[in-house]
């Protein structure tokens, strides 16, 4: 069968107006179903004719999924809330600026106007071998092309790999880990709450998925607890281009300060592993310090312990180390 691109294959478009209906439809169509949020990842797959769902479930008509609400002292962001709404939301800007900051680093204004919180978190990896429709592990095949000796793996991972070496492309994911967000995933058996860091899974668990979500699941909202409001935040995304580019390495860090001392820290890095990595050990290391230069240096070194480069991505090791240093040093 010859290959052809850039023509969306036919599908049935289903436009539920309630969460329950959406979940019912997902349950009904199972692996033939595809959830359409902002669609910016989905349309690529469709246009490449690689993913061919029989039914596309467009969540755009479900009012409950949209909007940012106060909840339990924190905030609840509907999965279909656009990234622009997040960037502009006054409370997010003031209390959880790292989330707005991260959302603002996504692609372009048009994409932020359409792309959603849920879509940004649930999007698939950008490994170009995989996205080219090659039959790699992630695509259900039996190999990883990106880790071959001369493969083009500049953007791939330096840790956490297991057969697959692709990285998670989300900009908001590390920021949500840094503020200890919870993802609420629903299916016909009811809602389930995941810590942000547990929401993302590596290929060792399931090589075909980036998150815990299985075909019947729907990410409905993200809860940001009050605990990390108004912490000291640091967000940085290193990319090749200023817009429409995925991270080489990005970092999101939150520091709860007491006087000049870090009481508690949460640091997450993306672009280095198949999932956003929370640096627990670094967090423990910096707690109780002032984020001074020596600590920052040690934090950087600790962060990259065990990192292993592929042929073309050794640079990510110092890049990650330097970003961790910078993040920790930012509070000093």
């Amino acid at each position, binding site marked *: 069968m010859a290959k052809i691109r850039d023509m969306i294959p036919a599908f049935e478009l289903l436009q539920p107006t309630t969460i329950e209906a959406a979940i019912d439809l997902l349950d009904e169509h199972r692996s033939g179903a595809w959830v359409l949020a902002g669609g910016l990842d989905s349309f690529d797959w469709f246009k490449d004719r690689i993913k061919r769902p029989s039914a596309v479930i467009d969540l755009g008509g479900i009012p409950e999924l949209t909007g940012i609400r106060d909840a339990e002292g924190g905030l609840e962001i509907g999965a279909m809330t656009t990234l622009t709404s997040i960037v502009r939301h006054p409370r997010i800007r003031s209390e959880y600026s790292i989330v707005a900051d991260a959302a603002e680093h996504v692609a372009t204004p048009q994409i932020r106007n359409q792309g959603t919180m849920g879509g940004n978190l649930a999007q698939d990896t950008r490994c170009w071998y995989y996205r080219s429709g*090659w039959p790699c592990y992630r695509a259900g095949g039996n*190999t990883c092309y990106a880790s071959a000796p001369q493969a083009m793996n500049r953007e791939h991972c330096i840790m956490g790999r*297991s057969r697959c070496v692709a990285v998670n492309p989300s900009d908001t994911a590390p920021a949500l880990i840094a503020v200890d967000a919870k993802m609420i995933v629903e299916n016909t058996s009811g809602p389930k709450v995941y810590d942000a860091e547990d929401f993302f899974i590596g290929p*060792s668990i399931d090589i075909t998925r980036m998150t815990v979500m299985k075909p019947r699941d729907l990410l409905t909202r993200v809860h940001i607890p009050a605990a990390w409001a108004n912490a000291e935040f640091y967000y940085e995304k290193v990319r090749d281009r200023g817009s429409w580019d995925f991270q080489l390495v990005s970092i999101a860090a939150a520091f709860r300060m007491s006087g000049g001392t870090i009481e508690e820290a949460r640091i997450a890095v993306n672009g280095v592993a198949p999932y956003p990595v929370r640096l627990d050990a670094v967090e423990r290391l910096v707690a109780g310090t002032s984020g001074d230069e020596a600590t920052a240096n040690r934090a950087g070194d600790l962060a990259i312990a065990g990192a292993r480069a592929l042929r073309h991505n050794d640079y990510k090791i110092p890049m990650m180390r330097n970003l961790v240093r910078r993040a920790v040093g930012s509070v000093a």
Partner: protein
Amino acid sequence: MEFWRSVANPWDQNVLIGVSWDLMWAAVGGAVLFLVGHAIWIKTRPAEAPQAPVDRAAAAGIPERIQRHSLAARIFHWTMSATMLVLLVTAFVPVFGFQFAWVQVHWIAGVLLIASVLWHVVHAIGWQDFWSMFQLGIDEGMAHLKHVLSSKAPAPPKAGKYPFDHRMYHHVIVVVSLAAIITGVFMMVRIDTPFMARNPYLFGDSTWGVIYVLHGLSGVALIFLIAAHIYFAIRPEKRWITWSMIRGWVDREHYLAHHDPEKWVVAEKVAALQGGTGAVADATVSAPRGED
């Protein structure tokens, strides 16, 4: 039902990537059918003619406990069993839908299996009576077949140290396991291990396809084989054998009932045996191969 999984490679050529998981379900189903069928068959089969009482004379000089498996052999067996079970669980349970980080466990178990098999091969050649296992016995097989088909057929001759079905099972498991092991070793080139750099281009796509299919075939075959093995191990009439793999010895009654003392000569070794089980690497010898 699909037998193979094939995909279009980057050049749009159709290549094999492995067996269809349908085969896994088939192996599971086949195993269940076999076990249930066998159990029913045993139940419905007319009772065997009562065995002649043990010939006291023959028993003379035969110790009460006869060493069947040395400690080393038993350690091998149980190591291999454990690794094999781990391999099967890590290979197939994720396919059933229960996901966990299986790859590393799988290849480590594979390495242990390889190590134990290597040790077993060396041990069997160097210290065990290699030929006691590696006898084909076509006449013996025919006799068994006739007996199975008709309970009226005369009972097949007694075996030496290893009954006919044990030997057959061993032959099959040797072939299947070696296939799994050899293909598995190559497949380790495609994953992260401390042994070598990953290189999916070590072989061409079609060669890899064959390797993956062989590995998959041996894997699903092992589902069936291991299931059958465990089933027989726990069947009441076979438990004395299972016990021998745990304790190392069989008692005189079972020895005389199931083995041909001429083929598995133990009398001369009594003294040695009484020195303590397992102290002697392998206390028995089988009859010369030509007699079979």
